[in-house]
């Protein structure tokens, strides 16, 4: 029998490894234990087998990559391939005693699998239209899985705040747009705007220390708060040490310093309740304050405030201040951009600012690429063609970006030349990861030396380059690609937040490095068998993938659901410092 310590050693090794945090010493102990004990191996196998089953059991089938790779086929079959079905007969043989849900899972698995197998064959052109899959079989069997996200308020803007802490975490300064879960929020200076999900909009000046409790309750220890509470959010409460301020649809402000506080009402009506009285009912102990009134609280006594005025930043002046800061960010970026545009490593740069006379053309703006880098191509050859995607506000004031939402949305690019190392960088606002593979930048054919940069549904960055075959035709048995998957960097609470994503393929060191917001997320050594020395791009797609297939009306659905603002390709491996500088130069707040 294994001891509990041994079981824990195995379990923790697995869990830490999956989170990318397993230390060498622990890893060695794990390997030694398993190699020497069949009991330990049995425990390990049972543990992972339960993991696999659990993974399936929450929505019936492993919904991510399996579905993804076959979505091409599924889609192709949906688009009118005759529906003489293999799977329908196959499915009739599926264990009849199985539960409905299990059966549904198998149905989907079978459908997906058949689609994948058939898709493969269709792609090879060996079987064309004699076998297929009825689209309605797929549609009818898909189970619905509801995502959940925990949050009470949106961090809608930040001005002059060096760093914000939520419980033990330091929020990235660029985390504007993040949905904040309940927790203790602190910052030293500057001001932030929170939009509670109830509808209350609040500007908080630092130094501030408050708990976000729910969408209509916050507990303020320190800080100056000015709240605008529209009728829909009536009942929004702020708890202070000695009383609760209940808003009855109005605008009010509080300056809290421990047990001392000043409450001022600008508009509408506010009630002050004794601690514990949290309801909006007008109990005896409630004091009402109306527009223009204010009260000072000292310990547990309330009285007239002193003569000294307290200035609160209201929403309008906060917005003005923020506009001012954004203006400064923009001009500082524009200056930095000139520097980047003249960087001779820059191969292609797209600002996503469209011109009114050619609204469907995405101009390539690399500054002065050297002639040998362009290999006879002129820069305008590298202009992109926008399909579907529409202009959307960018991360910086007044700048625009491109929004990708529908399966057809994409920017088509053709970038000639052969290169070694490559760096890809973009400002991206991910709204959701709907697809198993969510495209950032994918070459069409994924042939020799071509890169694919995407995000997996589970929030990992994914980059790979197809190794060269030295001119031999690809038969499916040649060297496969090395897939560099980062640890999870995204979850739905970050929906709508601007992020700087970058990946560096270093041809000399044979490494792939992922970056988020200027910081290295993970570095991967490319094994010798996957070695890639020469890269090329050719026809490629931003924000989607156009599958290399004939006829060309079939495609895997890999569109990004989000916005891309600026996309840069460098024909060089940028250093960690370079990437961080690129982030710092371009960050929105």
């Amino acid at each position, binding site marked *: 029998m294994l001891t509990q310590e041994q079981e*824990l050693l195995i*379990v*923790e090794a*697995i*869990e830490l*490894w*999956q989170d990318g945090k397993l230390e060498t010493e622990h890893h060695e102990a794990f*390997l030694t234990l*398993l*190699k020497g004990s*069949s009991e330990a*191996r049995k425990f*390990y*196998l049972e*543990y*992972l*087998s*339960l*993991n*696999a*089953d*659990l*993974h399936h*059991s*929450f*929505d019936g*089938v*492993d919904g*991510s*990559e*399996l579905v993804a*790779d076959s979505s091409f086929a599924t889609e192709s079959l949906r688009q009118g391939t005759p529906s003489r079905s*293999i*799977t329908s*007969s*196959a*499915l009739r*043989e599926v*264990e009849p005693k199985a539960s409905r*849900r*299990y059966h549904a*899972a*198998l149905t989907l*698995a*079978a459908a997906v*699998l*058949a689609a994948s*197998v058939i898709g*493969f064959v269709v792609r090879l052109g*060996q*079987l064309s239209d004699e076998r297929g899959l009825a689209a309605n079989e797929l549609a009818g069997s898909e189970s619905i899985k509801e995502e959940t996200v925990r949050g009470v308020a949106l961090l809608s803007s930040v001005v002059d705040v060096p760093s914000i802490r939520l*419980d033990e975490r330091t929020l990235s300064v660029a985390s504007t747009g993040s949905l904040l879960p309940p927790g203790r929020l602190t910052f030293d200076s500057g001001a932030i705007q929170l939009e509670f999900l109830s509808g209350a909009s609040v500007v908080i000046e630092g130094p501030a220390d408050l708990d976000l409790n729910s969408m209509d309750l916050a507990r303020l220890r320190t800080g100056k708060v000015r709240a605008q509470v529209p009728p829909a959010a009536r009942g929004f409460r702020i708890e202070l040490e000695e009383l609760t301020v209940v808003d009855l649809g109005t605008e009010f402000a509080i300056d809290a310093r421990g047990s001392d506080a000043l409450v001022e009402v600008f508009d509408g009506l506010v009630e002050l309740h004794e601690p514990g009285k949290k309801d909006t009912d007008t109990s005896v102990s409630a004091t009402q304050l109306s527009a223009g009134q204010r009260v000072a609280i000292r310990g547990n006594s309330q009285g007239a405030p002193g003569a000294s005025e307290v200035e609160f930043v209201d929403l309008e002046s906060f917005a003005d201040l923020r506009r001012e800061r954004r203006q400064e960010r923009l001009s500082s970026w524009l200056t930095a951009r000139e520097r980047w545009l003249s960087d001779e490593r820059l191969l292609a740069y797209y600002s996503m600012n469209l011109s009114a006379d050619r609204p469907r053309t995405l101009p390539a703006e690399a500054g002065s690429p050297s002639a040998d880098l362009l290999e006879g191509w002129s820069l305008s050859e590298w202009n992109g063609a926008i399909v579907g995607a529409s202009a959307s506000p960018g991360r910086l004031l007044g700048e625009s970006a491109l929004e990708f939402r529908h399966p057809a949305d994409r920017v088509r690019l053709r970038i000639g030349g052969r290169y070694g190392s490559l760096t890809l960088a973009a400002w991206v606002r991910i709204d959701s990861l709907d697809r198993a593979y969510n495209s950032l930048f994918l070459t069409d054919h994924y042939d020799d030396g071509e890169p694919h940069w995407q995000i997996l549904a589970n929030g990992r960055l994914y980059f790979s380059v197809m190794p060269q075959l030295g001119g031999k035709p690809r038969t*499916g048995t040649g060297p*496969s690609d090395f897939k560099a*998957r980062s*640890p*999870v960097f995204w*979850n739905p609470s970050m929906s709508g937040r601007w992020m700087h994503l970058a990946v560096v393929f270093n041809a000399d060191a044979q490494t792939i490095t992922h970056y988020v917001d200027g910081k290295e997320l993970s570095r991967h*050594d490319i*094994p010798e068998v996957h070695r890639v020395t020469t890269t090329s791009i050719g026809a490629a797609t931003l924000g989607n993938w156009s599958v290399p297939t004939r006829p060309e009306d079939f495609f895997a659905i890999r569109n990004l659901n989000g916005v891309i603002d600026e996309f840069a390709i460098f024909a060089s491996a940028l250093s960690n410092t370079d990437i961080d500088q690129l982030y710092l130069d371009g960050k929105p707040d």
Partner: protein
Amino acid sequence: MAKPSDSRTEAFVTDLAKSQNRLYAYIYSLVADHSRASDVLQETNLVLWRKIDDFDPQRPFLAWATGIARFQVMAHFRDMGRDQLLVDEELASQLAEDAEANACVALDGQQHLKQCLGELHSSQRKLIEDRYFHSHSITHLANQQERTEGAVRLMLFRIRKSLAECIRRAVSVEGGSC
């Protein structure tokens, strides 16, 4: 590739479809990572399809498919750098043998899992779902739950233990099916 007859293709696809979850579990138990397991499963499916001429509907499909999956897993191990793997090649072949010997137990477990999940407290179920379906990191879950990472690991360990016991009980009542 010779074109196989329709009825044989149908039998092949049926068998392949029925064995997906078990092949996945087998591969996953060796590579310990969902996206890699999906990749290897895809590759295995393609190899199986290419070898459809070797397919004999009379022979046990899963044993044949598992052998090919094992080969694909080993190829995957050789392809990945050492630092990217939880188990090395030597341990992987030991595990592959153990896994093939225990295949029936794994199958039975899956059938009872849902019932056993249903017996968990909803918060326990949520934690299991967040970790093993949504693949949230322990750090993320610890932040969310306002607990230490060690505490979350221990909670998961205990919940899994009770799940495993529940499944073991159910399997022993109904007996194995392999």
